[in-house]
């Protein structure tokens, strides 16, 4: 067990180093500051500035950049190892394929979550300095669910990287993310108004596709709605855990059968 955990920790550290060495995170952070700083000091005419617009833009940027970093890191993890053939020395050591897969998953997830934590820290500072709101419960819930969302997308992307090219994987997962975030709530209603073939497709999507909109609490955060009950948060996290388990199990089966 100790050996297993040490292997996972080593693989995780490698992915973290990869993220910070490529400087993707710093580029995104600088871009965020460049876009948010003018918005933060912008005031419409009047004595009371408009906070909700700035918060909405900030959260949209956080979501876009976090997903971009997550997909970029995860989609290139295994293909890069296959191309440069560094997978062989890794497997030559007594690291089993499932262990390697899970280690890569943890590495990509930790790297994405570190970027996410940085973004939310900047957002919390923005909320605190501009509005005097420090450490609200709804912000914590939003961060928790956003992290769960990244865990799900990491698992899906890792599964895709085993049988798709990097560009195809990135494109499909990005389409899935955007599609579910914008239309996931309305799939049932859309299906009800369609004829049988598209209705079947939409209902299949509704039941099988990952409902990433469950993890999106921006509306509550921006418009000062009360926090969600912790029981509901628990249900969503359970859903995320189930989906991740399914994706990683399928990825493990594919990786086990893959000829290197």
């Amino acid at each position, binding site marked *: 067990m100790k050996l297993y955990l040490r292997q996972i920790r080593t693989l995780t550290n490698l992915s973290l180093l990869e993220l910070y060495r490529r400087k993707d995170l710093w580029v995104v952070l600088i871009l965020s500051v460049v876009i948010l700083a003018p918005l933060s000091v912008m005031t*419409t*005419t009047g004595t009371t500035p*408009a906070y*909700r*617009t700035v918060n909405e833009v900030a959260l949209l940027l956080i979501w876009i950049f976090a997903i971009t970093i997550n997909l970029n890191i995860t989609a290139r993890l295994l293909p890069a190892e296959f191309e440069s053939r560094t997978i062989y020395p890794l497997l030559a050591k007594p690291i089993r394929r499932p262990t390697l897969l899970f280690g890569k998953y943890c590495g990509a997830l930790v790297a994405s979550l570190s970027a996410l934590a940085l973004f939310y820290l900047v957002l919390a500072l923005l909320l605190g300095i501009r509005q005097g709101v420090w450490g609200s419960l709804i912000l914590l819930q939003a961060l928790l669910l956003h992290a769960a969302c990244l865990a799900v997308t990491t698992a899906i992307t890792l599964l895709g990287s085993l049988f798709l090219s990097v560009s195809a994987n990135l494109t499909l997962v990005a389409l899935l993310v955007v599609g579910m975030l914008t239309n*996931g709530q309305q799939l*049932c209603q859309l299906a009800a108004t369609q004829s049988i073939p598209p209705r079947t497709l939409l209902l299949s999507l509704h039941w099988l596709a990952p409902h990433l909109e469950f993890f999106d609490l921006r509306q509550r955060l921006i418009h000062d*709605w009360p926090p969600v009950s912790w029981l*509901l948060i628990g249900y*969503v996290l359970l859903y995320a855990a189930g989906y991740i388990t399914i994706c990683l199990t399928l990825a493990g089966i594919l990786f086990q059968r893959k000829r290197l």
Partner: protein
Amino acid sequence: MSRPFYILGLAILLTLSLQSRLFQVPPAQLPQLGGHNILEMLLGETRQLISHAFLEKADDYLHGGVKHTTCDGDAHDHADAPHAPTSVPHTQMPRHSPHRDPWSWLNQHLHVQEHRHLSQHQAQELLPWLQAACYTDPHNIAAFETTAYTLERMLHRPHEATNVLQHAIQYNPTSASLELSLAEILLRSLKDIPNATQAFANANRKVQLNNPKTYDEQSMIKGRALFYLGHLALQTHDLSSAQRFLHEAQSTLPRNVATRDLQRLLDQYQAP
């Protein structure tokens, strides 16, 4: 110095010399039309869609971030109390009952379903989206009127509201609706009778009743403008002008409510 630097220097000199020559070209011979908004050149007709999207976003903000299909008119008086939409079209009812569909159940509880209205002091939050809607499409009259309404009624800033409408009138010189909105603000909030009278007269002059599609809206504008003109004329004891306005209303809008109200006003004025 190497050759590329010489070439770069020559290119810069050439650009600067051509630039000074371009300014000497008569405007009529320039390839583009001067004075056009850069957004109009880049986006074309798409800016109307974008402007409409910004206006819808402002409406979402008014309702606590929730898109709503219908809302009672009275509900706008209830500043903070959340309420559900008054009706959902039958075609939008999902086939699956929420109780048998755990995903829909989760969505309904995670995402806000009812909406509430912003209180007056929070109406500031609408301004960025309204300003964006006005800037993106200067011909979006609804955007300008909504901005003026928000500034005057919700934020109690009538001077800024009149500035917005005057700016809108520059881009939409034939719009009677904008003139009427301006006139009402000048009269109601600023008590500026002379300018209000002028604006009501402008609205009356710009009304077009020959289009069946817009007849209802235009007749409402004309009726209100004539009513206010008659009312303001009576305020200054100018009976002949008031009768002239009533005559115009009776000839163009005989069954309009405003015509009847103006008649009643004149009768009360003339009664012993």
